[in-house]
């Protein structure tokens, strides 16, 4: 490929560049993320009015869809990064995939837990076997766990990278399935409220904290991703010169 690629594209393939970029970005991501989490939570728990159907319990709407969405985003990040690493043999891309997996698993777990807790007072049950969205979200969690388990089983890191990349890409079909499952099947879940034609089906004073929390969780995800990525980069680069200089400069 003799395309003329922009400079930043090449820089993104350089571990020391990405490491230092992460160092610069993380404080901002962390600070803004925490602030937005606080603002969004307070707004959602206190300021937003009670729902006329679900009373106070509806407030879980400010964390459940968000954690589910981040879990799905994490999987897509993982699959895309793994695919890039596989095709172009980029260690850094594989490092991103590895870093995203545990975070995605935790967020998906939160989604399932908050969903179950929300389901009990509203639908009468914590868990409904056969509800498509719950089932496929659980499948997403299993995919993350399978990815991590398979990863851990290999001694050779390069082989682990490439084998798990195949698994990640095969499993990515599940992400749109989770999303569309409520449209394709009868489900306890309601259909999408945000992306409907004609605008969101939520009043503004509920919509704003909803969106704030989405942004808050997204920033938090990327903070977590970058910190894990930094650790992963150091592991992979071993005793490279730039690492020796990095740790020689005193404790970060």
């Amino acid at each position, binding site marked *: 490929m003799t395309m003329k690629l922009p400079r930043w594209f090449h820089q993104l393939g350089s571990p020391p560049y990405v490491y230092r970029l992460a160092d610069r970005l993380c404080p901002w991501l962390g600070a803004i993320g925490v602030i937005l989490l606080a603002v969004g939570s307070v707004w959602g*728990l206190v300021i937003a009015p009670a729902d006329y159907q679900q009373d106070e319990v509806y407030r879980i709407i400010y964390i459940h869809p968000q954690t589910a969405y981040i879990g799905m985003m994490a999987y897509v990040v993982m699959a895309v990064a793994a695919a890039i690493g596989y095709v172009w043999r980029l260690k850094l891309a594989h490092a991103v995939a590895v870093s995203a997996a545990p975070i995605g698993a935790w967020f998906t777990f939160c989604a399932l837990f908050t969903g179950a807790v929300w389901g009990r007072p509203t639908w009468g049950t914590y868990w409904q076997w056969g509800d498509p969205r719950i089932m496929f979200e659980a499948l997403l969690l299993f995919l993350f766990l399978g990815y991590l388990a398979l990863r851990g089983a290999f001694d050779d890191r390069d082989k682990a990278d490439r084998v798990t990349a195949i698994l990640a890409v095969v499993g990515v079909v599940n992400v749109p399935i989770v999303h569309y499952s409520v449209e394709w099947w009868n489900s306890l879940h309601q259909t999408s409220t945000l992306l409907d034609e004609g605008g969101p089906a939520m009043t503004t004073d509920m919509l704003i904290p909803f969106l704030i929390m989405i942004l808050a969780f997204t920033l938090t995800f990327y903070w977590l991703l970058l910190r894990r990525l930094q*650790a992963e980069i150091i592991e992979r680069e071993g005793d490279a010169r730039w690492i020796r200089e990095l740790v020689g400069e005193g*404790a970060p």
Partner: protein
Amino acid sequence: MSEFFLMNGDGAYVWSAYGLTLAVLILNVWLARAKHRAALQRARELAGQAQVPRRQPTVRRVQ
């Protein structure tokens, strides 16, 4: 105030949901940080071994 915690009877649900999510977030922050620190520590040891011949045991700095 107690009304806020009870949430009209549904307090347990709302707070356990928010509480668990917060706990998971804090755990993840701690895990990510710990991983980063551990990697830096290992890199430090590697760098220390490369430059200084092992006459004394390397001092483990407590993070």
